């Protein structure tokens, strides 16, 4: 009995969905697949807020079409991402897919995008190889090599001779480790040891102690967005700085979302990244204040601009196609687009479909009683992948 009621409920829902395509002439649907629950939930929240902010600021119509945003929770499980992508394409007839919080989630959707010829905008995942895995992938986030190489260059130029790297043991972490090692050793430095901590790991003591015992000039860190706080807490506790080891890393570690709570011990830490909430530009000032207002004071991080710029890219592509939603045409319209985002100038490479953007070297500083990543050097137009 209960089961039948649920089934009729589902049936009604399915009918309601089936009725939608009739409206599809006026409405363009954008389906975002994000981890809204589970360990990567903060990524999903930031991207959703960023995407919604763009729509709130720029209106929900573009080129005469009404934009409808559909958010789906994949809980961070790749088979769910894939199923939701299929349903969005087949049932909801979305014109564009977007989101993808982690590398495996994006990779699982690749075949769906290819088969359905629907552009998929990667707003978070950062392994360099993803975009090449489907001709319909476009990226508005960043890649790890893109963000890491400038850190290695800066280190080599600033009297750091030996480094130990500690990264999370999965795609982006290994990408980051590889990029750092290659760039740093090409510039004459030496990587003493490459440590990899399991992705789900509450305790870094063994790795940090090992790094400390090797006595490098600096320790390079990468963990995915959301895990920086745990790591830095233990880094502080182990007093690596007192032992003369400089802490460097990608901006994922000093995530704006959590930075303020990490404590003053972080002041002076150097990172390289594509976005800081403290980026000094009128676009960013407007973005940050609007974002804070819209989200009840959640500070925007690099994931949020991925979502914001992802929507920007979709709007710009629709303007170019004059509202035409054919997948191949939209994809073509996305290639080569450039504009000024809150993060600074950015563009979509016409051949690789990956993001080209400025990468900044930043130092953790206290501004108005709050911790920020303050940018002090810019490496312009770094390509996402080759």
């Amino acid at each position, binding site marked *: 009995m209960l089961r039948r009621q649920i089934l009729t409920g589902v049936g009604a829902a399915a009918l309601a969905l089936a009725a939608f395509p009739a409206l599809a002439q006026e409405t363009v649907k954008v389906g975002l697949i994000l981890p809204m629950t589970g360990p990567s939930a*903060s990524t999903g929240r930031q991207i959703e807020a960023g995407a919604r902010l763009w729509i709130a600021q720029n209106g929900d119509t573009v080129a005469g079409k009404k934009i409808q945003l559909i958010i789906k929770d994949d809980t961070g499980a790749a088979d769910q991402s894939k199923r939701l992508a299929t349903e969005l394409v087949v049932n909801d007839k979305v014109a564009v897919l977007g989101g993808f919080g982690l590398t495996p989630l994006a990779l699982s959707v690749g075949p769906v995008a290819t088969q359905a010829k629907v552009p998929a905008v990667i707003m978070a995942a950062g392994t360099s190889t993803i975009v090449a895995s489907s001709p319909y992938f476009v990226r508005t986030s960043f890649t790890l090599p893109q963000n890491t190489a400038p850190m290695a260059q800066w280190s080599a130029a600033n009297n750091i001779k030996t480094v130990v790297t500690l990264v999370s043991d999965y795609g982006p972490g290994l990408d980051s480790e590889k990029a750092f090692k290659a760039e740093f050793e090409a510039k004459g430095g030496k990587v003493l040891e490459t440590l990899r901590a399991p992705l789900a790991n*509450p305790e870094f003591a063994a*790795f940090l102690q090992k790094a400390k015992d090797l006595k490098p000039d600096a320790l390079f860190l990468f963990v995915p967005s959301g895990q920086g706080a*745990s790591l830095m807490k233990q880094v502080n*506790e182990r007093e690596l700085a007192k032992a003369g080891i400089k802490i460097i890393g990608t901006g994922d570690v000093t995530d704006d979302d959590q930075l303020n709570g990490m404590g003053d011990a972080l002041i002076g830490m150097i990172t390289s990244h594509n976005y800081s909430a403290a980026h000094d530009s009128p676009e960013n000032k407007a973005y940050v204040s609007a974002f804070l207002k819209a989200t009840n004071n959640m500070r925007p991080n690099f994931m949020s601009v991925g979502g914001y710029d992802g929507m920007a890219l979709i709007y710009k592509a629709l303007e170019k196609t004059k509202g035409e939603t054919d997948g191949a045409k939209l994809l073509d319209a996305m290639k080569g687009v450039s504009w000024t985002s809150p993060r600074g100038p950015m563009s979509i490479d016409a051949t690789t479909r990956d993001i080209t953007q400025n990468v900044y070297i930043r130092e953790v500083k206290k501004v108005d009683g709050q911790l920020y990543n303050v940018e002090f050097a810019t490496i312009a137009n770094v390509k996402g992948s080759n």
Partner: protein
Amino acid sequence: MLTILLDGIAYGMLLFILAVGLCVTLGLMNFINLAHGAFAMAGGYLTITLMQQAGVPFLLCLPAAFIFAAVLGLLLERTLYRHLYDKTHLDQVLFSIGLVFMAMAMVDYAYGANQQIVNLPDFLTGRINFLGASIGVYRLFVIVICSLLVVGLQLILTQTRFGSRLRAAVDDGRVARGMGIDVTRIFAVTFAVGSGLAGLGGALGTGIISFDPTFPLKYMIYFLIVISVGGTTTITGPFLAAILLGVADVAGKYYVPAVGGFIIYTIMVVVLILRPQGLFSRGPAR
């Protein structure tokens, strides 16, 4: 070398402090309470809120977290849990997992999904040297508190009237009732203490790990490993097991990183095969 040993012990203590409350509810009351992590999370988030919003000193947050979680536990015991004592273990699992899901969504609603951290007071940060090794002051603090707890709990269980009544109530509720022991009240108090200990564990945990809404699930495996390896009939069993597991894990990851991830699980499986009732358990398993 000694540093690694101390780090391992400290990690073990963290595991123990998070698991000790479960040791009380599961071991003494024979109730599979997978929602244990939710009580620990309540203690952790209370500490975070008190410190960040109200500026309450950390040391005051610890008893506050204990009381808060204990009261929460008592309320839930009186309203929900007591209906489940005579149900099967599987029903208990289903029920307490349901509670975990609800707790996760509620914390998410109230605090958001990002990780929350606290900054410890100055006198608990830093490191001190100890026989040529160095250890974080906070880790030492956790080790001391845990040791005191173990001694205290063990004394209460074995030396006090309450302890013997509790053991009687667990062993045979009907006979205990017949002897004039108020079993219902004893169970309620014990459950509250177990939940309170979880809250205290969560509060102490804020000094080392960060909290997010997935906490109860993320650490559930660790609680269960400590309890099952240590055995459920004593408090000292899980205590020793936690030290063993902590040292093995940290040392393993330090010396043989390639197999570091396997160590805890392998120890658990091997121990349980050789001694199904747990390493330090007396008497047969229940």
